[in-house]
């Protein structure tokens, strides 16, 4: 199933955050949403979530979660197995396996009894990612999943996404600020500016980035054949 938005406009008071956005997110792909701060990326994916959440087949990873959860790492991950139709929320053997697999996938096995609130920013993000994996939905919608991660873990989380797409046919929509990571892992790119979708592309180019960020981007090719973007 593809996720579609048709002529969506959202405004907070007088301030228009999204104007007339139309796009079809294709399944089985990693779609990267790129654009400057405040261009409506988070609002777009939140709108998507509220439109499609009822179908019960997507999971959402927010940028951050607020306040004190009072829960430990394993508790947070296990919330992914929550079933709103059941009164007893005991864990079946299957649930336990999902939880353990998700914990080890995000390398959180040693931290599972630690309180979530005492984790570092990056560990929290990995924990939230593990929770989403545990939910086992077809669509993953992630709001800057790597903003607090070191380069190794950023690559790890995106490699995991790649694997999930390849092996299990999952689909990803990821808001990403690191254009090089986005270029390396995205199948499709949605470039946003001032509440509108400026462009969509299958490959990032320096001219696309220059246009959307209003600053000139250059591209160099590494010896291994990868494109690296930088801006002066």
């Amino acid at each position, binding site marked *: 199933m593809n996720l579609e938005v048709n002529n969506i406009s959202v405004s907070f008071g007088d301030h228009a955050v999204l104007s007339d956005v139309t796009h079809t997110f294709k399944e089985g792909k990693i779609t990267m949403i790129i654009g400057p701060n405040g261009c409506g990326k988070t609002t777009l994916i939140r709108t998507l*979530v*509220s439109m499609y959440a009822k179908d019960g087949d997507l999971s959402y990873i*927010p940028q951050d*979660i607020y306040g004190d959860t009072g*829960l430990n790492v394993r508790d947070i991950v296990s919330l992914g197995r*929550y079933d*709103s139709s059941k009164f007893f929320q005991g864990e079946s053997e299957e649930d336990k396996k999902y939880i353990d697999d998700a914990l080890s996938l995000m390398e959180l096995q040693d931290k599972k009894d630690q309180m979530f609130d005492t984790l570092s920013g990056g560990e929290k993000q990995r924990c939230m990612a593990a929770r989403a994996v545990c939910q086992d*939905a077809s669509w993953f919608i992630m709001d800057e999943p790597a903003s607090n991660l070191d380069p190794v873990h950023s690559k790890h989380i995106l490699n995991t996404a790649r694997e999930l797409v390849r092996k299990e046919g999952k689909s990803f929509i990821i808001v990403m600020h690191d254009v090089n990571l986005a270029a390396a892992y995205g199948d499709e790119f949605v470039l946003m500016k001032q509440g509108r979708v400026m462009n969509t592309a299958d490959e990032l180019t320096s001219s696309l980035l220059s246009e959307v960020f209003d600053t000139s981007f250059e591209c160099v090719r590494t010896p291994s054949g990868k494109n690296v973007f930088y801006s002066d």
Partner: protein
Amino acid sequence: MRTQVPDKSSDRFVIKFTIAVIMLLCVMAVSCCLGSSTTSLSDVIKYFTGRSSELANTTVTIIGRIRIPRTVTAALVGGALASVGCIMQGVFRNPMADPSVLGISSGAALGAAVAIVLGLNGVILFGAFTGAYIGAMIGAVVTWILVFTIATRNGHYDTSSTLLAGIAISSIMSALITVIMTLHLDDMERVYMWMLGTFSASTADKTKLLAVVVVLMMPVLIFIAPRIDILKLGKEAALTLGVNQKSTLAVTLGACSCLLAFCVANSGIIGFVGLIIPHIAAFFKVTKMRKRLILSFMTGAIFMVICDTVCKTVVAPGELAIGAVTSLIGAPYFLFLLMGSRLRSGKEKISS
């Protein structure tokens, strides 16, 4: 060869719950013995095993009409307040949330006080349900909505503004109660009771009414508790798990306000129980909301029965205010938490 490693994540909830039930029964039995006159434990046991004919009439009256209603009320109020505190800490995602800190108890007390001075305190139902209960309920709901509205910014609750709003609203409510007391000196004594809290006015009818409310509302909270954990992930993530923020909060608000209003109208503002007890439950490594809620109820009931026993014995035949006893234990703990959070927010990690 692999050996079976015992699952560390199991929290042994059933064992902890069973111990709590046994402890509660023990402290309640002891509390039934103690008071301005002492009754022997064997008399209490005789009363419960249907051999009250062997006891003197005065003993039967003391146990049946005074001790049991009072002890049961203390247990119910303690359990209910701790449960509401536990739920509020989850909803506001704030370890310092509690009905008295956030001014919701004061709101309920103000509602009850207004009902009393307006002469609405006539008995309406069951020989116990009075206008004060309705006033308290309205007061609790209005205050809760007020705190919620002020503390919510861009769809999430700000920890510090929740506390500040609660403290400010609490002092407004207390000030209004003082004004009402000054304007209606005849009712002063009755209103003053709400400011301090006491179980001494417990009667069998009032206890039954409270028990009905607790029996109706606790299952609602136990049902909704896992959803409060889910809401901690944020509104959108909760939606993908089938949890709607608005309806969950509405049910929570209704059930908590109802419990709180009946507790406050029954025995006044009793501070800090809702604050400390959920932390004690967390100390026993029970973190998920539903189990924590159930354990908080039991621990709160035990704590309150012990506090009430202290109240009615240390200065017998006089009485200490229950609010004073719970606050004397609770307030220092609150300060301890405050110091802890200041240390944690410091530049350096004290220990790693």
